[in-house]
């Protein structure tokens, strides 16, 4: 597929056209910060963002998703499967780190036994990325096999040049969006290449990812776990804002005679996450939970899917109320005996 260009002044027109056909989600400036949200008009969109506060996973794996409805009438268990949404969705302005997280979620939810709900949403969603040229202090995508211009998980990637957007189409599905656009010139390609190099240069890896898997294999009983968790306050910020964390809980919600089975995000940081009905808890303290979080992201997922469960977006680093920095944790583990 050929790279394309779109003049910056034509972007809003382009998005407006998309809004007619798709439910478009893009970064929007709100009171709580810049968040990914549905836009009805291009005015809502805010493209001067480093990264959004929430990740785009909530459009594929919503925080609460109804699995089906049921009526709690006497002696029945009628259930109604929920209907598919007709309009397709399009996520515009996804950062490459979030894109990579989607690639990881795809492995978990689409392989082996596919997850019907995720699959339905995923098939219905186009993801257009926006390359990242102003990384934050908290960013570390290059440390976890990602990059500010990574195309993994995306259907297309926009790169902001001086006057144009340079567009790299990745999958067939999005090709038709760009057919009417001009092909990129050699100069554009060069300019984009240069931006990419510069951005990557600014993001020196903060740890050697190659060593971490091997280290973790033998680190289950490492005394370092005793210390790492100590200041953790057991909240769910890190896991809820994480674009790759995908653990969920299934619960029934009822009001009066009606109810629905829902699945909600859950967090390995919560004490009840693994609690048995018999009150036995295999991960009884925050030590085990932190070990699980690190092991799951950097060891188990790597082994099971070939990808890491961390994409280096830095949200957990930025928003942790006690500054429990995952980068430091990893470095400490690497340095430990």
């Amino acid at each position, binding site marked *: 597929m050929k790279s394309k260009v779109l003049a910056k002044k034509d972007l809003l027109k382009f998005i407006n056209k998309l809004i007619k056909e798709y439910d478009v989600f893009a970064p929007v400036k709100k009171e709580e910060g810049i968040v990914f949200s549905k836009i009805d008009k291009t005015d809502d969109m805010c493209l001067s963002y480093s990264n959004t506060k929430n990740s785009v996973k909530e459009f594929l794996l919503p925080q609460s998703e109804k699995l089906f409805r049921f009526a709690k009438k006497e002696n029945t*268990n009628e*259930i109604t499967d929920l209907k598919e949404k007709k309009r397709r969705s399009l996520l515009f302005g996804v950062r490459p780190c979030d894109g990579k997280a989607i690639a990881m979620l795809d492995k978990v939810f689409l392989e082996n036994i596919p*997850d*019907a709900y995720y699959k339905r949403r995923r098939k219905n969603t186009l993801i257009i990325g926006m390359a990242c040229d102003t990384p934050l202090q908290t960013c570390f995508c290059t440390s976890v096999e990602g990059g500010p211009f990574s195309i993994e998980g995306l259907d297309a990637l926009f790169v902001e040049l001086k006057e144009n957007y340079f567009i790299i189409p990745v999958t067939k599905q999005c090709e038709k969006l760009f057919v009417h656009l001009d092909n990129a010139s050699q100069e554009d390609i060069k300019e984009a290449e240069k931006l990419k190099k510069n951005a990557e240069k600014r993001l020196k890896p903060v740890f050697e990812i190659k060593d971490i898997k091997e280290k973790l294999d033998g680190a289950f009983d490492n005394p370092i776990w005793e210390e790492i968790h100590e200041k953790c306050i057991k909240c769910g910020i890190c896991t809820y804002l994480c674009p790759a964390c*995908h653990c969920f809980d*299934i619960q029934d919600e009822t009001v009066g005679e009606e109810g629905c089975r829902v699945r909600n995000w859950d967090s390995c940081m919560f004490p009840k996450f693994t609690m048995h009905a018999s009150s036995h808890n295999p*991960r009884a303290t925050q030590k085990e939970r932190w070990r699980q979080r690190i092991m799951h992201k950097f060891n188990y997922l790597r082994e099971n899917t070939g990808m890491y469960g961390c994409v280096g977006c830095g949200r957990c680093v930025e928003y942790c109320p006690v500054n429990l920095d995952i980068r430091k944790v990893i470095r400490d583990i690497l340095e430990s005996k």
Partner: protein
Amino acid sequence: MNNPYLPIPMIIKNITDETTVKDIKTFELAFLNKEDEKNFSYLPGQFAEISILGSGEAPIGIASSPTEKEILKFTVKWYEKGVVTNALHNLFVGDKIGIRGPFGNSFESKNIKNKSVVVIGGGFAFTTLRSLTTYMIHSHNRNKFENITIIYGARSPDDLIYKKELKEWAERDDIKLYVTVDKGDKDWKGREGFVPTVVEEVAPSAQEASAIICGPPIMIKFTIPKLVELGFSPENILNSLEMRMKCGIGKCGRCNIGNKYVCKDGPIFSLAELNDLPKEY
């Protein structure tokens, strides 16, 4: 669309109290749709998510054997904190519920055929072992196994579950059954003593044999060394684990032990496999 989250509608055909305190009940469920019944093929050791609308789901081992047609049996203990087990214990014959499954691997997946089998169970963890035993002694399958030894222990005679079947099995001469209780009552004429001691005593031959062990952690802890002493290799000591599970298909992320998911890669693990996994269960 093939949706693994939709429960299969079932109806409760029979409820049996296993103990006099009535905290353990066996539910016999029948399929409401013939189609579902045809599609539901399982083997001993597998589990299903029991789904009660309004309360939620809980993973329970299937206690019936595939050789028993038309019904599925689940034996469920009441726990004070268990939302679903509580709701289940409040149901009556004729109530409709749902199940999802079957999930997990089976005992057979661990290469137990054409060998002797030693089944060691404790307390109410005997459920999937009942499934296995019933399966093995069925006339179609009995010749696929060599000697079958069953060792089953509980705290008191009343805590033994499947009392009727134990009686039937005791009368068979193609299996050896040893039932023991920690402490008998005045009517108890059988064995007294802990399971590990009985294992040592009856010393089943480890030659070409698999040991399948399922029970409270303390029993497992003391029985495994005995089995190793007897010469059972770690590959032939099988253990069924339990974990909090929600999805049953390896997505929801809570039942993993190391990189293995109990719902998908288990619940049956050999001791050899467990030795390679972190001790987090």
